[in-house]
């Protein structure tokens, strides 16, 4: 009995220890500091109880960051899933150069977010405006990242462009689990392409739809790199996401404890959203 169980401990215990040291411990430390006025360095700090949490709810920069992040996350989640499902359907069909196209569409996922961000940053400021001027479109003739009302669209474009790759791959995997016999049967019954999609394809890839929605939502709620590379939260605070606010306020602003409180709340918010999403979407999943 013991002999057989030992290998499992060898596998799980180190993982638990590592997870505890690198994830749980820092998280617990963060919760601890959120009740102090620690500035991240220096020798002393005092306990301030719930003062940081109290201040958070009065800080309109926090409210502003939440508003931007949720608007951004919802738009990105919807666009990413629509586009990647369309691309996956195309790539699953019997087309020429199928593997070549699959490779091309996966490419954005391999590139580092920062590099992609800097490339797009250059395009937005030096290439697109010139096209806009030549075409005589005034909305396009300036850098949209420089406008308080439009900058978030620029970030959405880059984020969607990049996250479509991974979601496409997941949808492709989902599409390949559907037995072709079902399509043959529906063909015999005379179902059209549209009917086929809504009655067979979409219900059967429901588990993949769930995981893609949850992943896209979680990733875009935690958006950080794209913002650093494209706008650095600007103009003003128009594109400041919550994680960017936590980073800049906590490290550059020297308000470590205050932003720790912010991240504790943010952690709870993301966890609740993900659980609700899974609960809700899993209810409509079905098995063969």
């Amino acid at each position: 009995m013991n002999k057989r169980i030992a290998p499992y401990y060898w596998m799980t215990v180190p993982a638990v220890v590592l997870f505890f040291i690198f994830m749980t411990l820092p998280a617990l430390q963060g919760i601890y500091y959120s009740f102090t006025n620690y500035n991240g360095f220096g020798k002393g700090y005092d306990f301030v109880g719930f003062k940081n949490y109290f201040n958070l709810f009065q800080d309109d920069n926090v409210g502003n960051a939440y508003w931007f992040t949720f608007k951004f996350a919802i738009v990105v989640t919807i666009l990413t899933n629509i586009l990647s499902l369309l691309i996956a359907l195309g790539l699953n069909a019997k087309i020429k150069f199928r593997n070549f196209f699959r490779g091309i569409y996966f490419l954005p996922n391999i590139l580092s977010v920062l590099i992609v961000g800097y490339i797009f940053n250059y395009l937005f400021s030096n290439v697109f405006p010139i096209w806009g001027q030549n075409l005589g479109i005034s909305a396009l003739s300036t850098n949209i990242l420089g406008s308080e009302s439009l900058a978030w669209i620029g970030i959405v474009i880059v984020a969607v462009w990049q996250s479509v790759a991974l979601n496409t791959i997941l949808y492709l995997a989902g599409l390949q689990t559907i037995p072709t016999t079902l399509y043959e049967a529906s063909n015999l019954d005379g179902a059209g392409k549209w009917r086929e999609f809504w009655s067979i394809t979409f219900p059967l890839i429901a588990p993949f739809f769930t995981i893609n929605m949850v992943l896209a939502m979680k990733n875009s709620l935690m958006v950080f790199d794209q913002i650093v590379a494209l706008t650095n939260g600007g103009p003003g605070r128009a594109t400041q996401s919550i994680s960017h606010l936590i980073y800049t306020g906590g490290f550059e602003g020297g308000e470590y404890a205050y932003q720790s409180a912010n991240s504790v709340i943010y952690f709870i918010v993301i966890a609740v959203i993900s659980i609700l999403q899974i609960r809700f979407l899993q209810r409509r999943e079905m098995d063969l």
Partner: protein
Amino acid sequence: MRTSLTKALGIMLLCGITAVLLSSCTSGKSANGKVQIEFFQNKPEAKGTFDELIKTFNAEHADIQVTQVNPPDAETVLKTRVVKNDVPDIMAMGATDTYSILAQSDIFADLTDSPLLKTIDPNYIQMLKDVTGMDKVTGVPYATNANGIMYNKTLFKEMGLDVPKTWDELIATAQKIKDAGKIPFYFTYKDDWQTNLPFNALGPNLVGIDFYLERRENKVTFKEKYREVAEKQLELMNYGHGDNFGKAYSDGNRAFANGEAFMYIQGTWAISEIRKANPNVDIGFFPFPTGNDPSQIKLVNGIDSLFTIAADTPHKEQAEQFLAFLVEPEHIGKYIKEQTLFSAVEGVKQDDPAVQELTPYIEQGKVIDFADHYIPAAVQLNSIVQSFLQNKNIDNYLNTLDKEWDKVANRR
């Protein structure tokens, strides 16, 4: 079952011990019998110059070895190292809010009576006291920079323009350039820190630095004092190019180097970058004419680099030796020449032709510090100014400045 549990506990213990061992063996000292001094500095532009100076120093001192550390985003790296109690022996940074916070946390050695400060211009030592609000001096001011208006001499000559001495002349000159269908100012406001350059010139000149000392004690507000600053900054926006918020600092350096605009509100630190883009550009620099009485105008001149020694370094004496070497006129002369900065050591002159119009101000002490050195970083001045220039609402802007200042003060 019991044995496997104890085994598991043993593994956990082992992992813990390894972790402790790994972390404790990093503080290596004097491998070759020399005293190792870590010199941490925040200017990537200055890395090459410091490398050469350090090489000379190490060659002259057989028992000391100085090593330069210059990571990207150095201020943040420094803060995280301070958290870990891994403070470098010598740190170089600007006299900013970061320096102020660290100095107030007592991590720097007290240099108030140090002979290192003997040759330093007392104005800059006073500046450090104002920034930290302490009487103790914990830094050696080294190089200073200036913020003003850069202009393209060739273009000015072609149009027969004179260097403006007052605010009205500045606006008239800009209008003339605009009427000729050219670009008066090249604004690079996609980077939010660029928007505070006019703020830094207008604020201290029109309102004064004392404002901030009083603001800390809640005696004045931005709303009462900063309206003129806001209005003038807005007025400048009429003389930009078409995409003021779409261009970043690096775009601006390139464009100005290639003669796309006549003037560029900038700091002296940009000169070397602009010359990299076009070595032949003929640059001039004049102080920001903030008002209409030329004799009242002061040059915005702040500490670009200062040196501090860690309070608990075991090698304080050697660190001081290295700093004494750096402030020698010959060595600081080399530094300011290569970096186009000004010396905080008295009697060392900057003779770069681009900044000749600024030197009289520095020699006569007609200088004033940057406003943002007095504003807590958590206020995030830059993004507030950037936002104001977009929506152009002065009341809203001044209220935001006061509100954010109070919020940060309450949280500290």
